[in-house]
């Protein structure tokens, strides 16, 4: 039983209305494509990685306000950090950066974490697996 649900935090609304890094990266070398519309959410994360550093991050998302906001926040968190730092980013970190999500929307932040994992895996695959720990 919980009492906090909607409305979204102001930060969620801000990222929903003014999503950062919305779009695609033509020369992305890591793409994470997760979710599907039947579940209500689908997220595609584009990363440009240079020398173990994320130099650019963009997204396209089909989903609710929380899905869009977590996508936006995730790309913000990712830009400019190392792969090692990126691997440490959890769904909780994304949710917290947004001042929290309603319980029923936690799965959106989980999707962000999954998109990141998928993108990193894609990068490893492209670069021959030499980026893993």
């Amino acid at each position, binding site marked *: 039983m919980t009492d906090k649900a909607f409305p979204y935090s102001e930060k969620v609304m801000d990222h*929903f209305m003014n999503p950062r890094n919305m779009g695609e990266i033509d020369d992305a070398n890591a793409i994470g494509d997760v979710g599907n519309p039947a579940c209500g959410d689908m997220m595609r994360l584009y990363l440009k990685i240079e020398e173990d550093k994320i130099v650019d991050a963009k997204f396209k998302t089909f989903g609710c306000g929380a899905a869009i906001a977590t996508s936006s926040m995730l790309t913000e968190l990712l830009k400019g950090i190392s792969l090692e730092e990126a691997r440490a980013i959890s769904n909780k970190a994304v949710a917290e950066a947004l001042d929290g999500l309603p319980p*029923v929307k936690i799965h959106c932040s989980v999707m962000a974490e999954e998109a990141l994992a998928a993108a990193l895996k894609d990068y490893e695959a492209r670069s021959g697996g030499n980026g893993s720990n």
Partner: protein
Amino acid sequence: MGDDRKIYFDHQASTPVDPRVFEAMIPYFQERFGNPSSHIHTEGVRANQALDAARGQVAELVNSETDEIIFTSCATESNNLGLRGFLKANPDKGRHIIISEIEHYSILNQALKLKDEGYEVSTLKVAEGGLIDPEAVENAIREDTALISVNLANSEIGTIQPIKEIAEIAEKHGVFFHADGAIAVGNIPIDVKELGIDALTISAHNFYGPKGIGALYLRGGNNISPIFEGGFQEYGMRSGTENVPGIVGLGVAAELASIEMPKRIEHLQKLGKMLWKGLEEEIEYINFTGHPIQRLPGHISFWIRYIEGESLLLMLNIKGVMAASGSACSSNLKGADEEDLAASHVLTAIGVPAEFCSGSLTVSMGKDNTEEEVRYLLDIMPEVVEKLLMMSPLYADKLRGKDPYSK
């Protein structure tokens, strides 16, 4: 967030209390606050008279006898009293019930519980427009069918069912027939005698009455048991001190609806046509849901390919337009589990593929909405839709020639 415009297009979820309804309720909070069971003193008597008057007003609206109206706390309770109450009082009538697949949760979840208790439930399919086929009802009836329950109008897709035809079949087979009129009563003409139904759910807050009050019409001669025990109020069928101001409000809302209905319907049909036509012209990827003609006046429902419903609603809300994705009062996301986020059972029932259901929108207009408000929505829709299309990976795929919606 732009101007301070607030346009309420979510009348299927709830309606504002009409000022005249509220005016009539006021005395019953502070002055005429007696308990109707206090028969012996003035305040009790006055409260009682208020109940009688309201009962008459509601009866008039649906053309029933006065003593065929039982006040409850909401449509959900009326639905439960109508089904569970009948089955409890008539255990010999058989263990089979018939509902449709587009019922409200207060019917669907009852049916699930009844299944647990050994009842068999036939769930009727609906056609693309959401219509139940009366012939399918007849085919579903068995020797041991105890009751049929069907929603008069569906809140999510607006479709109005062929109740009279179904009632004739029910009557022919001697089966008790309950119609869930929660969002229909007070909004479209309903005559229980003409329709020939046994029970009808009535919800005040869906036609400019207050929340916290509903009613059940129960045809004279039908026997039901209460769903909870107590001091025998409401002819022994619904115990608990009566919500007198709420009942007074329901009564006046019913009276106003009786008088103003033709005018309201004409107005809403005009707005509805205007919105439908405008959306059809301006939104490229739109798909309307529900029946094009057999639908609630002023009720427009649709989904838009490539974009998701909640984000669309949120953007519209920021621009001052309040609408719904599916049935707002059908489920409570607060503390609900992920299951509730699944596609609407109503939309999948009418054949919208599950993957597209999350794009559904319901715009339900009310008697006080204006053409100007409809025009505003039509004005802002294209840019909002465009913004979401730009964000959508599905739309990006489509532009690349991999349209997920064309098989």
